[in-house]
């Protein structure tokens, strides 16, 4: 960590990932894991000029009351200022001042089976001029629950920050705790974590591609991809005892070894997906009615994706090559290599193509890793120590970062940066390039986690 002066702090260059505060400092994280800090003066720090910093500065104000001096956007991020009955004031949503503009309010309860969030569209006819997302509905006080607990106990909360990325969050949390305590994780645990992370990626990619097709009214792909996800979840349950592999990653290793016959169950699910994938891909590419909905819809230009340091498929569909499995990188990926697909179009179709291209790569990785499982213990106990550490793991939607400060075996402070935090502003931009009816497709194609940012 480098301590900067109030002048050097906003002038620092780099790909901005996250910002947070503790009692004495504000911290900013840049790729590939460069941590800088500035001292708080009267609970305030200079605002950062990076596009992605806005949300984090609003969040720091909501969580800790620390002000970013000179910030353009001072709306609350997750604070609703509600009374005991749950009632609170509505924020003012400002529309562009054009003739014939009206607002459409959607949520917090949505039509489908998804998380809560409020969207306020300013539209002129069908065309969306502006989208403002109001989040915070899934706020559970996760950071507060983690403080004061031991790393192993707190892992249960990391696993529930965003359920669809529970393995990635668990791994990033474990990486941070292990860095803070100087812990060397046994090889078998490292491999099993990566097997689970790639299974998680496959489960989410298959179900989301299907769901996007479903939102376009194309039920066939939805039901076939949902079946693929079901097979992967069933295999995960056979191998690791839980369909989403929740609570399997713990600081120091993994909570259980792969079950007898679990490897075979996983390989069977991968075979079934591999056999069907080319024909499903052909259906996606060949049906004009489906392509018409996704090509050129919800475009995020590469310059915008770069400004927000977008990760995962949302970044890779818009020319960003970053993948935290390679940079900063963590084991065991350097042993197995990794192909990262990149496209330039940045539309819904490109985001689907990236996910389709990531599926065979994850299948290959899982097969290779299961073939080379080291014969070591699966976990070692974390010592009761003190220290601070950063940890990262690549979830299916991008890099998840954890920062921990551990004092005498208990977590004194924590921050969690889900990639969704940088992707929600991209959704606001992408939605304003399209018509209202395309919003479900665009939202699903970026698929930001609500719970992951509401904390």
């Amino acid at each position, binding site marked *: 960590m480098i301590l900067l002066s109030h002048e050097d702090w906003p002038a620092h260059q780099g790909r901005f990932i996250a910002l947070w505060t503790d009692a004495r400092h504000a911290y900013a994280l840049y790729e590939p894991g460069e941590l800088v800090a500035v001292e708080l003066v009267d609970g305030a720090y200079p605002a950062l000029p990076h596009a992605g910093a806005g949300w984090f500065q609003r969040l720091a104000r909501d969580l800790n009351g620390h002000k970013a001096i000179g910030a353009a956007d001072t709306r609350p991020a997750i604070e609703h200022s509600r009374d005991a009955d749950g009632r609170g004031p509505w924020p003012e949503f400002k529309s562009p001042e054009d003739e014939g503009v009206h607002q459409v309010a959607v949520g*917090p309860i949505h039509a489908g089976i998804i998380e809560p969030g409020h969207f306020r569209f300013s539209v002129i006819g069908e065309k969306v001029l502006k989208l403002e997302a109001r989040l915070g509905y899934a706020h559970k006080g996760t950071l507060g629950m983690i403080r004061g607990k031991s790393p192993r106990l707190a892992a249960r909360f990391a696993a529930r920050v965003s359920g669809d990325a529970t393995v990635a969050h668990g791994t990033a949390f474990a990486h941070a705790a292990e860095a803070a305590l100087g812990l060397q994780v046994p090889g078998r645990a490292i491999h099993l974590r990566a097997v689970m992370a790639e299974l998680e990626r496959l489960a989410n990619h298959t179900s989301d591609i299907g769901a996007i097709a479903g939102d376009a009214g194309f039920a066939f792909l939805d039901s076939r991809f*949902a079946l693929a996800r079901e097979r992967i979840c069933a295999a995960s349950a056979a191998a690791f005892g839980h369909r989403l592999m929740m609570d399997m990653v713990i600081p120091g290793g993994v909570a259980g070894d792969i079950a007898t016959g679990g490897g075979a169950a996983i390989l069977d699910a991968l075979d079934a997906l591999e056999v069907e994938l080319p024909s499903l891909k052909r259906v996606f590419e060949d049906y004009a009615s489906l392509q018409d909905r996704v090509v050129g819809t919800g475009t995020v230009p590469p310059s915008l994706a770069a400004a927000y340091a977008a990760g995962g498929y949302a970044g890779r569909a818009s020319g960003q090559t970053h993948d935290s499995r390679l940079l900063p990188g963590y084991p065991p990926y350097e042993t197995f290599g990794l192909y990262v697909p990149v496209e330039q179009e940045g539309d819904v179709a490109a985001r689907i193509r990236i996910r389709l291209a990531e599926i065979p790569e994850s299948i290959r990785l899982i097969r290779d890793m299961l073939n080379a499982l080291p014969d070591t213990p699966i976990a070692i106990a974390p010592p009761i120590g003190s220290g601070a550490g950063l940890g990262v793991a690549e979830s299916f939607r991008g890099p998840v970062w954890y920062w921990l400060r551990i004092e005498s075996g208990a977590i004194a402070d924590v921050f969690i940066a889900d990639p969704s935090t940088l992707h929600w502003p991209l959704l606001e931009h992408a939605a304003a390039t399209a018509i209202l009816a395309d919003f479900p497709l665009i939202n699903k194609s970026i698929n930001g986690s609500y719970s992951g940012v509401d904390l």
Partner: protein
Amino acid sequence: MWKTVARHLLSRAPEPSTGDPGLVKSLRERVGTSRLGRSLAIRHVPAGSCNACELELRATQNLVHDLTQYGLSFTPSPRHADILLVTGVSGKNMREALLQARAAMPEPVLVVAVGDCAVDGGVFKGSPAISGGTDSVLSVDLMISGCPPNPAQIVQGLLSFIEANEFLARAPAPRREMG
């Protein structure tokens, strides 16, 4: 393709699930006077979940678990719903929306809490940002625990409603009054 068609013609559907008999009996006492129709529509409200329960709820609709075969379906509108299905802790920021969704449903309303968080707050129990499980906001008729419960457990739990309700539905059901 012909191979696939032949396999599907020869294969047999798995045995359908059934509800827990004890639960069906107690629910029947509650549903007994409710005059619900033969199929039940579900309105899902996430009150502060981590999205794992939503994933497994969606999975109840896939080709394997196929919830609709039992006459249960999800509806976007609370006005058309018989069952209010709540996932996640009862977060303070969702309390108002949850109460509004409940108020928008025609009586009688059956409330199901799905997942450990909805049952009693789960691991988040005691957090100042939440009021507890679903029963800290609404009275609950059925709780399906698990973190998250798997799709088969969710289907089995919901089936108890169908079976409790079927008993009366054999007689022509009178038209429901919209509340």
